[in-house]
């Protein structure tokens, strides 16, 4: 099925999406020593160019094609059968585009307040790593990218975060690294077992998935080793505890990136590597993952309801949303998986936007305590209106993007995971509860003295948010262009899974 398209493009667009931010990060770091005033411009130029390239990619992507496009495949470490193999299909396309768009917005929109040079250098390095993770079709390359992302994120949280930043950054780093420790062993074992079928050593995920068969027992162990890494990254209950800390302590830019794209590396990894390589084992593990996903949905929602800190509330809502995505991923029906992919992007947009808004509130009031905020609607109606749209998108209101994904996931999962889906639906109601309640407490009522000077959204912030609102509304009203790019790849993915599990 998903055969690499043989098309050779003159311009290696995917490689440049990784290499441009990587080089810019080095340039920015070096510029900082002599021309500190230029670093923001350099970072901006680089990220905007990357964003433009990713939009061009979106335009040039052939929507009926299920296979990988723009493939770039160069030998890297030939002794170990490792290659620089990048490609996008419908599943990864929008995540790549999201990464391309989100970084320039964060770099333009959020002021790090101190040590700009290193902040931008880390941001760009982070972008290179995230891009690489979403496009890598080589297990080794994927692991490298997946792991290298930790370093810039660690420094972003640790260097520019709030009071408990060192604790949160360390926890984030160790949790994720512990997960990947298992995956590394799993990757090597996968390759060495696949060698028996293929006759040669390769880390190429397509060749392994298409050419190798694993014994039931081996596949289960291997799947578990991958699943641990991805479960930590998503994060699934019970390994989610790093997330609220990391989100709350991270600077706004870090939170946006973390929620927007970093968490998707887990759910995307489940699809691209976990299920694709070991479909049977994934089928076998389904009940456990359903259960963990649904626990995540309910637990995340309940925990979010009880938070006093607005940012922590949004963080827990992420746990709930990602539970939905995992549920859809493992339902393994065309609709559910499409929904999961759409929802990965939607969650990135709407939660990213929520973190931005919470960041703006903090900039103005220097607090995120819900009880300290009141009546903001009266003093900043436009701000409140934008918050409403974003929040409703997160709740999943029909007509906004969140609804499309959630709806597809729930419909698609109902067949194979009926009871789990029914329980998860409760989570939709709870989402409305905690977000609306928070909205009510923060925005309604009469503003007290401290809140009455709350500044209305300014032009820069307004332009920033309008990008998010536009995506939210467009995807909600007219999801067809998105779906028709995702569906062919998802369908052939499902065919692959079904052909292997019969």
């Amino acid at each position, binding site marked *: 099925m998903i055969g690499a398209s043989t098309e050779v493009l003159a311009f290696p667009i995917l490689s440049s999406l990784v290499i441009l931010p990587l080089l810019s990060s080095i340039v920015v770091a070096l510029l900082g*020593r002599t021309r500190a005033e230029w670093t923001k411009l350099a970072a901006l130029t680089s990220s905007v160019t990357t964003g433009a390239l990713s939009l061009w990619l979106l335009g040039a992507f052939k929507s009926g094609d299920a296979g990988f496009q723009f493939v770039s495949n160069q030998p*890297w*470490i*030939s*002794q*170990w059968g490792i290659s620089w193999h990048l490609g996008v299909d419908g599943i990864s396309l929008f995540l790549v585009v999201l990464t391309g768009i989100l970084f320039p917005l964060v770099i333009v929109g959020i002021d790090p307040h101190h040590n700009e040079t290193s902040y931008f250098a880390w941001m760009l390095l982070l972008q290179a790593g995230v891009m690489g993770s979403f496009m890598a079709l080589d297990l080794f390359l994927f*692991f*490298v*990218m997946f*792991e*290298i992302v*930790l*370093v810039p994120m*660690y*420094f972003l949280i*640790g*260097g520019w975060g709030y009071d408990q*930043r*060192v604790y949160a950054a*360390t926890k984030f*780093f*160790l949790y994720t*690294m*512990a997960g990947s*420790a*298992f995956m*590394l*062993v799993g990757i*090597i*074992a996968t390759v*060495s077992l696949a060698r028996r079928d293929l006759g040669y050593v390769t880390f190429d995920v397509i060749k392994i998935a298409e050419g190798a068969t694993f014994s039931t027992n081996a596949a289960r*162990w291997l799947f578990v080793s991958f699943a641990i890494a991805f479960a930590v990254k998503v994060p699934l209950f019970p390994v989610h505890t790093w997330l609220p800390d990391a989100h709350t302590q991270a600077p706004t830019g870090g939170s946006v990136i973390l929620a927007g794209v970093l968490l998707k590396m887990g759910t995307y990894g489940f699809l691209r590597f976990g299920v694709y390589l070991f479909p049977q084992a994934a089928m076998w593990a389904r009940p456990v993952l359903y259960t963990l996903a649904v626990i995540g949905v309910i637990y995340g929602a309940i925990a979010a309801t009880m938070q006093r800190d607005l940012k922590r509330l949004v963080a827990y809502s992420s746990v709930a949303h990602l539970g939905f995505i995992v549920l859809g991923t493992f339902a393994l029906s065309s609709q559910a998986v499409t929904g999961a992919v759409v929802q990965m992007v939607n969650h990135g947009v709407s939660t990213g936007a929520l973190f931005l808004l919470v960041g703006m509130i903090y900039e103005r009031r220097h607090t995120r305590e819900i009880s300290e905020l009141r009546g903001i609607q009266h003093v900043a109606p436009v701000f409140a209106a934008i918050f409403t749209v974003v929040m409703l998108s997160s709740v999943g209101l029909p007509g906004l993007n969140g609804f499309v994904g959630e709806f597809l996931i729930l419909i698609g999962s109902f067949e194979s995971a009926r009871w789990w889906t029914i329980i998860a639906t409760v989570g939709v109601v709870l989402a409305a509860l905690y977000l609306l309640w928070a909205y009510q407490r923060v925005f309604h009522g009469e503003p007290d003295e401290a809140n009455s000077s709350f500044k209305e959204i300014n032009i820069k912030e307004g332009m920033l948010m309008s990008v998010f609102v536009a995506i939210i509304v467009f995807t909600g009203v007219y999801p067809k262009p998105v779906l028709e790019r995702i569906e062919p790849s998802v369908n052939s993915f499902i065919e692959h899974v079904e052909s292997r599990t019969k």
Partner: protein
Amino acid sequence: MNDISTFVGPVIDWLAISPLLALLAGALVLLLVGSLTGQWPWRLYAHLAALSAVVAIFVSVRLWDDVDTNGARLLIGGALALDQFALLGTIAICLAIVLVSYLTSDYLHREGVDMPEIYALYLTAGIGALVMIASNDLVVLFLGLETLSLSLYLLAASNRQQVSSQEAGLKYFILGGFASAFFLYGVALVYGVTGSTRLINLNTALASFIPVPRNDAVLLIGIGMILIGFAFKVSLVPFQAWTPDVYQGAPTPTTAFMASVGKIAALVALVRVFVVAFPSRSDDWGAIILVLSALTLVVGSVVAVVQTNIKRMLAYSSISHAGFILVGLEAASHRASPNVDDGLIGVAVYVVLYAAMVVGTFGVVSVVTNDQANSDASGSTSLDSFKGLAKNQPMLGLAMTVLLLAQAGMPLTSGFVAKFGVIQAAVSVGSYELAVIAMVCAVIAAFVYLRIMVNMWLADRTDTATVVVPTLSRISIGVAVVITLVVGFLPSLVLNLGSNLAELASR
């Protein structure tokens, strides 16, 4: 009748042992000329030591091609082996000598004394190390071991103004003496059973050896004692107790030397002895290595977490690295597997990359901390002395960060290539448990490196504002960082070497 006249000395291939000769020449010049003349200007002691090591590296590279074309062989009547496994170790050791010599030069200048003895000791220790890694005979190995160890005892105690340095030397000497005795007794027992000390003869003797129950016990005890001797030198758990104290007490450049040269020599020799001489007993020692490796990994990384002194932290981290290297040896004990040689290659690659990493790391420690300032146990080399380093000395902070990330095994650094090699070896022979234990311990150890990075990047302190990085140290640390990054991005550079690495001359 006329036996004496018919005695024929072994043929000596002078070129093939020229790395040894280069170091020997350097040591002799330093000792003889250095003691007869006054103080040398322009840091010539360090340059001379480095020069002889560089010559040794160049010759080794030439010999490498020679081995590629003519194959591995034995030298001096079978006492030494010439193969790429040994040559790679030679290059690693000589590289470490160059880097450490320059660090030492700056260190001694800061302390106000520059003397030739230290460099001469580095070179003699290097000679011992080269003999060890190439030796094809247990007695020759013992000679190399003692040459190395005696030099190291002196080096550990070389800071005469410092009580802790004296203590380190004495402690190292007493425990090292014990270890040597164990080793020698083991050699004697093995000789008693097989009638030979040549590794290759041991293998043939043991392969055709029909075990009489009691005899086999003697053999196994012998092998066990040899292993204990090595375990002391490599500081495997539970034989590691001396390591943190000695590493902490010794002058920092010397610590770098012990952690690199001392460890590499003992590990490479350990691997050679067990793979060449005792493959027929690999079921017995493989299990022991498995346990030692797991223990070393776990204790090394867990205990490192609670340390507050940077040298002790790095001492425990070096213990955990040794555990990692043993993962490769354990893989090499699975003789039934077709991938058994991956373990050997993994070990060889690991030690080279580890040498650059560890010397670079201790190099930064040597520049930042000051042994002299405070002679009580943990004063000046405490972790606090790194606070704010990255703000006051960004390049040095960045260099240390790269080196620490490499030690943690992050991708795009040489540390990842090294770890990947041994883990891959373990997985390909089916040692999944050990691979998982090793990776989990790598995560625990990563916490240690994060703690150091937190102090460098995230803590505000001005103490480090006075840190100056002298030129030679800058070169040393720079070279280590460049190796770390270049190999990280282009692992093929090292892996291309690999094809003949596992062809040991004596097998």
